């Protein structure tokens, strides 16, 4: 299947939740230095809920689109639910299958989310 589906290109060109948060509970950075993908995510957590989240970064369409989709997905969700999310959830959001090499790009934002809401990199 074509990797560059309309929705992925849309999120890449018009990223949702892009920028910095003023009130930040936690800010995390993740990168794949050898690919050149970078993601920064700011989280506002209140009463066990992801009250707000924003990201910025640069990298390939897959890494940036997945950050955009994932931030959309987790906003308003309970932290315990977000911690349960895994690889499959990210692939579902993207709606495509990825080769192992490109999977790294897609999962970068998941690692950031897991660390941001308090978990570790264990997806």
């Amino acid at each position: 299947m074509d990797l560059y589906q309309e929705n992925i290109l849309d999120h890449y060109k018009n990223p949702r939740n892009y920028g910095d948060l003023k009130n930040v509970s936690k800010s995390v950075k993740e990168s794949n230095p050898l690919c050149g993908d970078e993601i920064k995510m700011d989280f506002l957590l209140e009463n066990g809920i992801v009250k707000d989240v924003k990201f910025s970064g640069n990298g390939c369409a897959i890494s940036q689109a997945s950050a955009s989709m994932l931030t959309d997905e987790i906003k308003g969700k309970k932290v315990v639910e977000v911690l349960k999310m895994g690889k499959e959830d990210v692939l579902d959001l993207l709606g495509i299958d990825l080769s192992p090499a490109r999977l790294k790009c897609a999962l970068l934002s998941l690692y950031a989310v897991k660390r941001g809401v308090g978990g570790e990199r264990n997806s």
Partner: protein
Amino acid sequence: MINFKNIKKEFPILKTKVNGKDLVYLDNAATTQKPKSVINKITEVYENYNANVHRGIYSLSEKSTEMYENTRENIVKFINAKSIKEIVFTRNCTESINLVANSWAKNLCMPGDEIIVSILEHHSNLVPWQEVSKVKGAKLIYVPLLKSGELDMDFFINSFSDRTKLVCVTGMSNVLGIKTDLKRIIKSAHQNNVKVLVDAAQLAGHSIIDVQDLDADFLAFSSHKMLGPTGVGVLYAKEEILEEMYPYIFGGDMIRSVDKENSVYADLPTRFEAGTPNFADIIAFDEALKFLNDIGLENIEKYERNLFLYAKSKLEKMKNLELYIPENHEICGGIISFNVLGVHAHDVASILDQEGICIRAGMLCAQPLVKDFLKENAVARISFYLYNDEEDVEKLVTGLEKVTRIFE
């Protein structure tokens, strides 16, 4: 006149389809494809005379040993070394460099000593020297690149001190295709009584290498980047230097005699070849040397240069490309790095892959050069070899037009 059209037919893989499209292989700086003769030779070894080398008294082992040593003799001729004593087999170019780092540099460097490298280096000719520096308290000095694409020779010449122990430099950049002025570099180093290691991974099999003319002290390369099998590297070192070096891998094959407490090590070059070598692939590597010699390295160099110029002219016509071609591109071989504006190199590579076109994207194992010099997080790279042609370039251009359309 060599007919390069017919050369393509010698490479079975070039007839395969990738994602339903004809394979266009433009990642030769990473590894090259293998001609039928090399592939057949590997089968021939295993079907006819597979036996461990340097051991058996029986005919089969004598045959494999003879074939194995035959490759070594032909490498001597290929780079114009003085004798087989100067040719050590390793796993790859990286291991060859690590051998020098461990067996020579670590024994020589003292705290405060200096190792000169260039900003062009691949990680394989950087990280071993970082490690030597860390362990021995030595310092790395980076020679910068001028806009022209040449190394800053004034900086280089002025960077020698009485603490300089070694110069490590590539013969050809794997990112920019720049060929360094090895003769001049080695001459200035020797005027300062400093030895030079040449990383010839990209140069070997693309240009004539004459280690005596260069007066190189060490020169390393890999078989798989010059039509040969993977898992075979070569270290050339001057005999008198190898004689001084102490092995860092010990075991069978590298010894003359062993008693309970002590061992006497073998003569050159086997002293540095502990354990069973990758003899089947080393035997097949000889077929790669033969293939290259039959065509002639001068012809290959000229052919790649023409392909470079053709690709340059085609790519320069595309509006949305940033090409990393130095001002003085006369010194470049068949490598071009670029970016499609507004598109990450990995996305470029993924879309081209769908068209059957293989290119490299990312830091290209040269992070300091890409990050600090080109100021990029990733670049895309095409690299040619003797089986590529203008049609490959045209397919690339069509592929890049598709990239632009998708990301419009």
